[in-house]
């Protein structure tokens, strides 16, 4: 085999979960940080969850900025989605690629039962249970034909189911039962379903004015489900799911009802997505099928959250959703995004480059390289430095003298983007001083591409970055930030 026992990614033989965590405990830091770390790890997990809940609950109280609350609501909805996906993917190890469809199904379900579309205005206390139950049933039905299949087939069936959901809802404005009934408008087609009712409980409307009410509704749902999942995690079913993930064959031989466990995991995941879908529909007052399509990136973003936080970890769900959604939100604004971009590059360099003199050399080299390139380009091709940096202030004017900014960056930026991708790939192959040397033009190229191309199209850039996060994380740290690394006992 190509990878021997020296491969750092390979599971270590003879090290089980307890030994791994004990080793981690022994390699603690000393001093004040060490004491703090030790005390913090002694706290039970629910204490952290509770702290998160309280912190989140304070957010709408300290800010009246509608935008912040909207972002908070979106983050909470993502957390709910990640929590549900964590059951299917994180615990049971079933790759569910139709997950976004359950969310969409429930959002449409709420929209159909509580909007002028069909003249139905049900009470929210009735809609939510009905819709969630229907979503659970749907999850059950999708998993049913694939229960005999190994993981990969399940992935493709669910992926196709997701795509099917999108086509049906996107084209559902002339729907007929195989030509037997007249054509009816069921889903509104590309126009979606607008004017969805607010949550109303016995006639009392909530959330009429802003997102604050939905923020609290989503927070309560999330906290309740989080504690429920904490209990499930240690229950019989939770342990059975994890054993199913580690080795389905062994689990079956131990007498576990594998098929039933798979179905339950699938249905539970779908149910939580359904709950999030109802809140989504009511908060946004309109649903469109395109929001749940693969190309919208919803599914991939939820996966990125789950993987970043660490599949199978509840704290990871919170952390992953928070980090990914806030970063994606920051990327919408070019000025903020630029700051984040440079901070990220600097932080990565500081964290990964050892010894320090290399770090200093690379940064100095990059700065020098930049001025040299800028001087050459402005002498040879004056139009090449006429553009403006996306960010203003000191950083912007500094960059204007350093990075090449052509007045028409479209084509050259695209070529540079492809070169950057290739350069980064080559960089991973190099070692030692050659790598450090190659890093200098690569860094400059990255800045060039960012300033000229990426920052101009934030909506595409976000999605590219989500893809990169998935690839890099899976290769560098598959267990995510808070997950436990995989152990194999031989």
């Amino acid at each position, binding site marked *: 085999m190509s990878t021997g026992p020296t491969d750092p990614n390979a599971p270590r033989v003879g090290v089980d979960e307890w030994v791994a965590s004990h080793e981690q405990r022994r390699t603690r830091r000393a001093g004040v940080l060490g004491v703090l770390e030790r005390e913090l790890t002694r706290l039970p997990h629910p204490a952290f969850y509770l702290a998160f809940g309280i912190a989140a609950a304070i957010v709408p109280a300290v800010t009246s900025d509608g935008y912040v609350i909207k972002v908070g609501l979106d983050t909470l909805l993502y957390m709910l989605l990640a929590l549900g996906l964590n059951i299917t993917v994180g615990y049971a190890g079933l790759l569910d690629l139709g997950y976004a469809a359950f969310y969409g199904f429930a959002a449409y379900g709420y929209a159909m039962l509580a909007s002028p579309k069909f003249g139905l205005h049900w009470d929210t206390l009735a809609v939510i249970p009905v819709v969630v139950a229907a979503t659970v049933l749907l999850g059950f039905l999708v998993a049913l034909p694939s229960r005999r299949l190994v993981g990969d087939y399940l992935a493709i069936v669910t992926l196709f189911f997701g795509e099917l959901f999108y086509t049906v809802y996107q*084209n559902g404005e002339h729907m007929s039962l195989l030509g037997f009934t007249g054509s009816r408008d069921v889903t509104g087609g590309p126009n979606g379903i607008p004017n969805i009712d607010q949550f109303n409980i016995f006639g009392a409307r909530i959330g009429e004015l802003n997102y604050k009410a939905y923020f609290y509704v989503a927070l309560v749902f999330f906290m309740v489900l989080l504690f429920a999942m904490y209990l499930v995690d240690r229950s019989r079913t939770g342990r059975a799911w994890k054993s199913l993930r580690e080795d389905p064959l062994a689990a079956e031989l131990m007498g576990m009802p594998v098929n039933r466990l798979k179905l339950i995991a699938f249905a539970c995941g779908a149910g939580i997505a359904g709950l999030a879908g109802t809140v989504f529909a009511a908060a946004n007052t309109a649903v469109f099928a395109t929001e749940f399509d693969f190309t919208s990136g919803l599914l991939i973003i939820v*996966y990125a959250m789950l993987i970043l936080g660490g599949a199978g970890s509840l704290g990871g769900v919170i952390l992953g959703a928070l980090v990914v959604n806030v970063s994606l939100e920051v990327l919408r604004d070019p000025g903020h995004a630029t700051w984040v971009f440079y901070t990220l590059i600097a932080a990565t360099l500081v964290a990964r480059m050892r010894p320090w003199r290399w770090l200093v050399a690379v940064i100095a080299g990059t700065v020098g390289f930049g001025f040299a390139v800028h001087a050459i380009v402005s002498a040879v091709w004056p139009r090449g430095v006429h553009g403006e940096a996306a960010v203003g202030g000191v950083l912007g004017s500094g960059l204007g003298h350093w990075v090449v900014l052509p007045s028409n960056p479209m084509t050259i930026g695209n070529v540079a983007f492809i070169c950057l991708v290739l350069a980064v790939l080559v960089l991973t192959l190099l070692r030692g001083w050659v790598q450090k040397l190659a890093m200098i033009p690569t860094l400059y190229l990255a800045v060039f591409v960012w300033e000229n191309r990426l920052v101009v199209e934030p909506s595409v850039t976000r999605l590219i970055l989500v893809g990169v996060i998935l690839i890099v994380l899976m290769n560098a740290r598959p267990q995510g930030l808070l997950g436990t690394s995989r152990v194999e006992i031989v």
Partner: protein
Amino acid sequence: MNWNLFVTELVAGIAHGSVYALIALGYSMVYGILKLLNFAHGDIYMVGSFIGFGIITVFGGAESLTVSVWVLLFVMFFCAMLGGGLLGVMIERFAYRRLRNAPRIAPLITALGVSFFLENAAQLVLGAQYQSYDSYGWHNGELWVKGFTLPAGVHVGIAQVIVVVGTIVLVVGLTLFVRNTQLGKAMRATSFDREAAAMMGIDVDRVIVATFFIGSALAGAAGVFNGLAYQQVWPYMGFVAGLYAFIAAVVGGIGNLPGAVLGGLLIGLAQSFSIGYISSQFSDAVVFAILIAVMLVRPSGLLGRAAVSKV
């Protein structure tokens, strides 16, 4: 019965099915060797299609080609297959190689990430709008005016003939390669049992790289075929096509090359006839129904053998 519609859909189905079959072959080969669902495979097809489009632009655009159609076709196929193949090898080297011994779910999620990255990078570089090969316009429609007429009065253009004949040539070539050459034998051995093959002295890394190259080159060619017959290319075209091709591979029996071709034709015909006779919106549903039916009746696919898992 309306024979004209029937024959039209038949021709369209076979042409579409050929494209699916070519993509499905690459899917199937990679799956056979690595047991990996390479979601990025559909996007290699998209890149191949765009390389073909780029060649048309280089030679003066569809309306005013500076070279003869046959030279153009040759250059397009050469570049698209080479480009697709290299892209596939790069993806294997940088995204999948480190994950060969990781849990099954890790490379799958990586493949999703690669697919998503390629789609959006293509959108950044090439724009989100549809582009057209416009093969009707090449030298006054040489590829479509010429051709022959089938019994029910259906005209078949040279372009469609090229798609079908080209696919047959590639499939026969691949079959001969896998059956007769040393590398082909090594591929079969590796797909049968990777560890045993390594112990027999086969350079597994080289075999995997070759598999990715060949499979991806076929996807690149399929991209050009698709552009020739159906004109439109756009960054997200690979996702749906990859999905259909994967279903074709599964229906035929994954890891089985004749099965992939059979499955591709079946899916192409099913899609085409359901568009013609049932409803264009619900052709997806028909394909899905076929998939479910095949999986329930013959989980190993039409031509596949039941997998025996040893412990």
